[in-house]
């Protein structure tokens, strides 16, 4: 359908959503190729390394999911994929912690960037939950021991009735569906907010190009 000549475009939810999405990030900031000099820091390399490791975690986890929880116990290739899954998680957490420490000492929440900082923290906490439920889906003595130890802690906060760590099926679904989706969504929000508000300038650095304030 075309609008008649001269008439203003009819408002629709498609138009509204398009305009809203276009305004999420300033023009040219979705994938910028020019950055302030203070962005040249190893701390941001570890932020990107976290995202890269997350992709390896998801890919190796997908291969493990195809074989099932017991597959890696009886297959050499399965054992290899399980090790890739473990060590990509180690790299994921190491890189994320280094990025977090660096951003903490940079006071990265300055200049209306509180939500960027908060989504990073939420991504970190959600990732810990994802890793813990992963311990419970190893289908070995280790997972049995951890679940029996964890149940008292979960019960003590009143969550045991609907989050039963002794239920391997429930923990498996939290580990492979709910929590990874949550981590992915929060990570996307975090990156979008970084692009929306820009990288925080140094404490003794130049004027903030986004908020216009001298920190």
């Amino acid at each position, binding site marked *: 359908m075309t609008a008649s000549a001269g008439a203003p475009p009819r408002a629709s939810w498609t138009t509204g959503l398009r305009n809203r999405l276009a305004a999420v990030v300033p023009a040219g900031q979705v994938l910028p*190729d*020019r950055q302030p*000099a203070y962005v040249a820091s*190893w701390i941001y390399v570890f932020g990107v390394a976290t995202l890269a490791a997350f992709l390896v975690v998801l890919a190796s986890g997908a291969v493990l999911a195809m074989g099932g929880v017991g597959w890696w116990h*009886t297959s050499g290739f399965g054992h290899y994929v399980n090790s890739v899954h473990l060590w990509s998680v180690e790299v994921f957490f*190491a890189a994320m912690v280094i990025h977090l420490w*660096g951003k903490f000492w940079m006071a990265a929440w300055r200049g209306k960037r509180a939500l960027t900082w908060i989504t990073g923290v939420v991504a970190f906490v959600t990732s810990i939950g994802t890793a813990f439920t992963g311990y419970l889906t190893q289908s070995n003595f280790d997972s049995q021991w951890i679940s029996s130890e964890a149940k008292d802690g979960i019960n003590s906060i009143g969550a045991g009735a609907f989050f039963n760590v002794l239920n391997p099926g429930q923990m498996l679904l939290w580990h492979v569906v709910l929590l990874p989706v949550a981590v992915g969504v929060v990570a996307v929000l975090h990156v979008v907010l970084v692009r929306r508000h820009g990288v925080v300038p140094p404490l003794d650095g130049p004027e903030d190009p986004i908020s216009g304030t001298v920190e």
Partner: protein
Amino acid sequence: MAPTRDETAALDRDLERSPDRAERYVVTVAGVLEAGKYVHWGVLNVSVTNLAIIAVIIVVFLLAILLPFPHGADDDVEEGVGVRRDEERSS
């Protein structure tokens, strides 16, 4: 470390021949699964492996802070605010 397939199969055969060896089976598998050395410090209990990983993370963090970040020849640094000129490089 998980038992190998051969070790598991041997234990299974052992168990089938003599069911009353179940206790030995459990003890043997538990021994194979021995997780290594732990460091106890008050309420803290951490494996040496995890402690080593944490130490490596701290060292890498310090290196990330202290080591200078390499700059490309096409970086334009002016009064502390530089930009990468990828557009010019590609043109």
